[in-house]
């Protein structure tokens, strides 16, 4: 089945997710190359490119990390080609070095990068507002409010980038990335530009080292000033004002939706002036001033930081010093997190001096909250990580006497859920690859550690840290939880998968070969589903001096089931006659397929969830779990 983003029917309206709409926009802009590193909420951008790259004749890759991804697209840009690089917000931290240089040296072919921010941290360890990084680096920022905007703004971003010679940031939030809505399609295009490195603009030899290296900030500032002029009259910013309103709202990006729904609910459409803001950096100062001069109070809605609000305050100093500015800075909106329809209702009502009735469900919700568990996250039924952690605990207990005699430094991926009960065996996790670095500092000051890292993350950022450990002769133990895919974000291939983003065969890069090449002498590979062998391997690792590594290998259970469809795994079951009801399988292993019949005091296995790994049968001390006949 063809992906709808390649539908060549301009004018037709189809259903697209925000992330898919961005891909469509890039195809309408005639891009030649796209790169990404998977990360929620950006992942579907790359997934969609991977599906349509062959058909549309563009290059797409899942790069090793975001910095490489950005560099690849910048390389093509210097040769006059349009490209897109997408990542989740924190991915931009990794790509920051090259992003800054691309802004200073300028671009040739349109370079658009997507920072998919995650206000309220639906799937992130932090709530970083990446508009600040754009501000710091003279980069224009476009903020779409919905999938239609996402597509249209993307097309415009390429024109803007080439006109201004700056990279352009398309900044989404989770609610736009994952929103699905009607999108009216434009025309697909192929640019067929000749790929030619622009020596005059980018070569030290031709353009001169001094010209390329010094004084670039001024040039970037001048470029941005021209962008500001363009934004003053851009259709991405829409001011709706009759002149009679006393109250105004500046709604950046997705928050425009909440504001519009609130005005309908409050019946206040003709009493509130609205600036729908699609360009949050640089702000169209004259346009903002017009609104500020016309009203007595203004609310700024945006997510998650008061980025626009702060700049609006600066503009107001000259435009209308008496105006009251409501938002996150004066406490009328929460100072962090995403906004919600009811939050916006309340603040607009307050400005109009009206009241919104309190939530009539509050007591019922409290009762439900009390009655119903929170549903903690955990790794899937049959997940090899659960098994690895189980074996690791046993090994640490055997070697050290107590499982808490080591600090378990986890990393970013599904296996980061090792902290969840009943595994409960992970003390820290920070950012890509950090497990191996922080373990070294602990070790240097005499604290024993285990670094617990996945295969994708190992390739992304861990190799320099591993070399550091070898060179400094630091005593660290590394477990690579190797499930063969980047599972957390949707099973994308990584450098050891042996296939490209498009599914074509390529060289598989071996983790053990890398570890040995950088000087790790003790490297063992073990099957994660074999508890006994895993425990033994972990014991040897813990007893080994210096840097030692165990690669705990087994393909991701969900991926394994995907591969075997339409066949299904053969589930295990509990022999009720022999089960003594000790709950050992539930309380120490806790696979989601396990359950307990309180009435009869017996454990059971849900055959619709069980994926047939059989590890619980190795956990059961009574030997009463076996494969179903």
């Amino acid at each position, binding site marked *: *089945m063809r992906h709808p983003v390649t539908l060549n029917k301009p004018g037709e*309206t*189809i*259903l697209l997710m925000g992330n898919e709409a961005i891909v469509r926009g890039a195809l309408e802009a005639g891009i030649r190359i796209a790169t990404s590193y998977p990360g*929620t909420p950006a992942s579907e951008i790359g997934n969609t490119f991977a599906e349509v790259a062959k058909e549309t004749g563009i290059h797409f890759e899942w790069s090793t990390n975001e910095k490489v991804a950005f560099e690849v697209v910048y390389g093509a840009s210097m040769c006059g080609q349009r490209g897109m690089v997408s990542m989740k917000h924190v991915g931009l931290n990794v790509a920051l070095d090259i992003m800054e240089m691309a802004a200073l040296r300028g671009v040739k072919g349109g370079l658009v990068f997507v920072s998919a921010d995650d206000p309220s941290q*639906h*799937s992130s360890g932090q709530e970083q507002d990446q508009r600040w990084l754009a501000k710091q680096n003279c980069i224009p920022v476009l903020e779409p409010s*919905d999938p239609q905007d996402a597509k249209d703004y993307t097309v415009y971003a390429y024109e803007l980038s080439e006109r201004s010679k700056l990279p352009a940031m398309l900044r989404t939030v989770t*609610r736009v990335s*994952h*929103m*699905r*809505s*009607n999108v009216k399609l434009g025309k697909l295009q192929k640019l067929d530009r000749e790929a030619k490195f622009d020596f005059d603009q980018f070569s030290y030899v031709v353009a001169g080292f001094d010209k390329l290296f010094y004084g670039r900030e001024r040039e970037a500032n001048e470029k941005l000033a021209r962008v500001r002029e363009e934004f003053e009259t851009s259709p991405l910013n829409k001011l709706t004002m009759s002149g009679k309103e006393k109250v105004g709202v500046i709604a950046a990006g997705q928050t*425009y*939706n*909440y504001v*519009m*729904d609130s005005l309908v*609910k409050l019946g206040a459409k003709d009493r509130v002036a609205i600036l729908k803001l699609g360009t949050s950096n640089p702000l169209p100062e004259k346009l903002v001033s017009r609104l500020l001069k016309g009203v007595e109070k203004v609310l700024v809605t945006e997510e998650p930081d008061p980025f626009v609000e702060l700049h609006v305050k600066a503009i107001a100093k000259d435009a209308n010093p008496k105006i009251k500015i409501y938002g996150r800075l004066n406490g009328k909106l929460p100072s962090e997190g995403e906004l*919600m*329809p*009811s939050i916006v*209702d309340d603040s607009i009502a307050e400005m109009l001096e009206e009241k919104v009735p309190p*939530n*009539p*469900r509050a007591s*019922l919700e409290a*009762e*439900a909250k009390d*009655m*119903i*568990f*929170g*549903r*903690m*996250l*955990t*790794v*899937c039924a049959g997940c090899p990580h659960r098994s690895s952690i189980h074996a690791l605990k046993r090994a640490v207990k055997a070697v050290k006497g107590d499982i808490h005699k080591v600090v378990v430094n986890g990393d970013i991926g*599904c296996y980061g*859920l090792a902290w969840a*009960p*009943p595994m409960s065996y992970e003390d820290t996790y920070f950012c890509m690859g950090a497990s191996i670095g922080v373990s070294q500092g602990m070790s240097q000051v005499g604290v024993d550690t285990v670094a617990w890292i996945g295969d994708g993350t190992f390739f992304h950022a861990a190799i320099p840290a591993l070399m550091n450990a070898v060179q400094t002769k630091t005593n660290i133990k590394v477990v690579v939880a190797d499930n063969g895919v980047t599972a*957390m974000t949707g099973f994308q291939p990584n450098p050891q998968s042996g296939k490209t983003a498009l599914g074509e065969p390529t060289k598989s890069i071996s983790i053990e070969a890398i570890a040995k090449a950088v000087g790790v002498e003790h490297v063992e590979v073990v099957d994660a589903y074999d508890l006994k062998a895993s425990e033994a391997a972990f014991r040897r690792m813990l007893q080994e001096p210096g840097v030692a590594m165990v690669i705990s290998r087994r393909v991701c259970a*969900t991926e394994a089931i995907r591969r075997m469809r*339409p066949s*299904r795994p053969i589930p295990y079951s509990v022999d009720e006659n022999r089960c003594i009801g000790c*709950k050992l399988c*539930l*309380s120490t292993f*806790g*696979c*989601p397929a*396990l*359950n*307990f019949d309180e009435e009869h005091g017996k454990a059971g296995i*849900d055959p*619709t*969830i069980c994926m047939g790994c059989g590890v619980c049968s190795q956990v059961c001390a009574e030997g009463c779990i076996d494969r179903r006949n």
Partner: protein
Amino acid sequence: MNITRLVIAGVGGQGTLLATRLIAETAIKQGLNVRIGETYGMAQRGGSVMGHIQIGEAYSPQIRPGDADALLGFELAEATRRGVTYLKQGGLAIVNSKRILPVEVISGMRRYPEEEKLLKLLRQVSGKVAVFDATALAEKAGDSIATNIVMLGALAIADILPFGENDILAAMKESIPARFQELNTKAFQLGAQAFREFK
């Protein structure tokens, strides 16, 4: 302008996203506007998932508390959790009685609440609560993975959506690979039948 608002609640891996998409595809084919907001985070790892569907001129991808015309609850506790917040007074709840145990229950930290207690809470919002084991019906159709289509079949005949069951069936035919067609059609019909019995 009339807006139809639906909340779909479930657990990662139950196929709520596909059900949401099928409803939206059908709406667009009827020339209607649709807005979907999905909250899934890291749902694949056993977390709650929720989809908000609005058909008509809505802006926000989020439905306000107490505004949903119908709730499609793919899992018992999730249905109550979301129903008490989002379902409007007197709205329709279609609930799969299947329980998917969270890690809190499996590891013995919490107990799964009794069905009657959960439903009693939900019924304080609306008496229109249809409960049946959609997962068992999907198994009967051939694969528990078709639970989402069973739920969709029930909703299709509930007079909530601004289009009929044949429109949804047509969208299903277009968006789902042919080899799953028989399974899905059967699941859809079993869902519709289960809802009719409730009426």
